[in-house]
């Protein structure tokens, strides 16, 4: 039976590994190559890597670094950040990146998504939707350019549109819960899960393996992504790459075993 996925989410910035809180205050975690290698040794289900460098515009992804990271990993990689053309996507795929994530460009230029799907197939094209709560009603809204631009778009409507375009997977990135380790926002997840009939992954808020367990129990086959949980240890948030052993993961996922 298909298992839910437990996925470390890593942030790159200027070639280094970082972790944010609410998409701000990046904290240096070290060399990404060692982190990828460690997750590989720990048999992580897959990795999601986002490049949050501010000055990538026009330069595209850091292909050299990504090539090294891909060569270290025997598990699938999903990469997002600075992708603006089909050539970028092609190059990433040839380096060994299975899934390519588009974010801001999905809003500004959805034609590229259609073209990419026709060349690379739905399964290789992912869209990451950054979501923030806005206004005094705390409505969910899609955010762009690393949560620096408000779009006024409703995440559920946007997800439906992307499903119609043929996108293979959606990653819901909760800006408000990022780095807080206080649990996933089930309301947001449920709204999108029940509306868009394509595979979903969620990142933002995981603080423990129990949070992961509750998420996969509630939403079958969802991808449970986490940043802080897999790079920090203990109440002082000491940097230490960690990931559940196969036995621990079975316990976390066993509620969905069939």
């Amino acid at each position: 039976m298909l298992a839910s996925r437990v996925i470390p989410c890593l942030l790159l910035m200027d070639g280094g590994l970082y972790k944010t809180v609410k998409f701000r205050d990046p904290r240096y975690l070290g060399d990404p190559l060692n982190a990828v290698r460690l997750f590989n040794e720990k048999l992580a289900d897959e990795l999601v890597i986002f490049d949050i460098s501010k000055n990538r515009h026009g330069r595209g992804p850091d292909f050299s670094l990504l090539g090294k990271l891909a060569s270290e990993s025997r598990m699938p990689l999903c990469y997002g950040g600075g992708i603006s053309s089909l050539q970028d996507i092609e190059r990433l795929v040839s380096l060994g990146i299975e899934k390519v994530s588009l974010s801001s460009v999905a809003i500004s230029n959805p034609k590229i998504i259609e073209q990419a799907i026709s060349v690379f197939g739905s399964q290789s094209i992912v869209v990451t939707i950054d979501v923030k709560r806005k206004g005094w009603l705390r409505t969910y809204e899609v955010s762009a350019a690393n949560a620096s631009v408000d779009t006024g778009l409703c995440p559920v409507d946007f997800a439906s549109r992307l499903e119609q375009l043929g996108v293979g997977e959606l990653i819901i990135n909760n800006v408000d819960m990022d780095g807080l380790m206080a649990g996933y926002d089930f309301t947001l997840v449920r709204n999108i899960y029940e509306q868009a009939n394509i595979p979903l992954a969620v990142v933002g808020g995981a603080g423990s393996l129990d949070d992961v367990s509750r998420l996969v129990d509630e939403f079958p086959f969802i991808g449970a992504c986490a940043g802080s949980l897999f790079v920090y240890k203990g109440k002082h948030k000491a940097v230490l790459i960690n990931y559940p052993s196969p036995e621990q993961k079975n316990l976390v996922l066993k509620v969905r075993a069939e």
Partner: protein
Amino acid sequence: MIGVLDYGLGNVSAFVNLYRRSGIPVQVITKPEQITKASKLILPGVGAFDTAMTRLNQSRLRDSLEKAVLVRKVPILAVCVGMQILSERSEEGVLEGLGWIEGSVAKLSSCDNPKAKYRIPHLGWNSIKIVRASPVFTELNSARFYFLHSYEFMARRSEDVLALTKYTTEFASVVRRSNILGVQFHPEKSHIHGVKLLENFWLEDF
């Protein structure tokens, strides 16, 4: 030596790295004459059916490849969309497939109700149920692999199906006709079991 076919669509480097780390001689094949040097071949594939066929035809490797596989019976392992192009045709595109294994490719059955579990594409770690023994499965009895696809291979002859995987219904996850093997999953990105399968392909006789 294992030859990994680089026809412009696929993560060639993933296979090369893996075989190198296992100490198995491997080479990337970009020219037809290189095919004769390989004792076994890998046909990778990431992407859509028509793109794969177009790129393969444009690469000028097809003729030498067919001679090697169909005449000299060089063992070949086709991966993901590489496996799908072994068929005659696909719902995903309009071009003809290689037709090396009789059958066609259709969209995975799904359910329109979002509250249902089975969404397309099929993506993640799933197990295979071996229905026909093969040396490629040595020490892989309860193995799990990473799948990432929206279409399935419907083999015309049931004896061409070596393993099934359940997702909504059961679909063919491993197919074989003589020296031609196809796997729907990505062994190059399936950790230990994937490495073992790729090593089995090298070590065993087909």
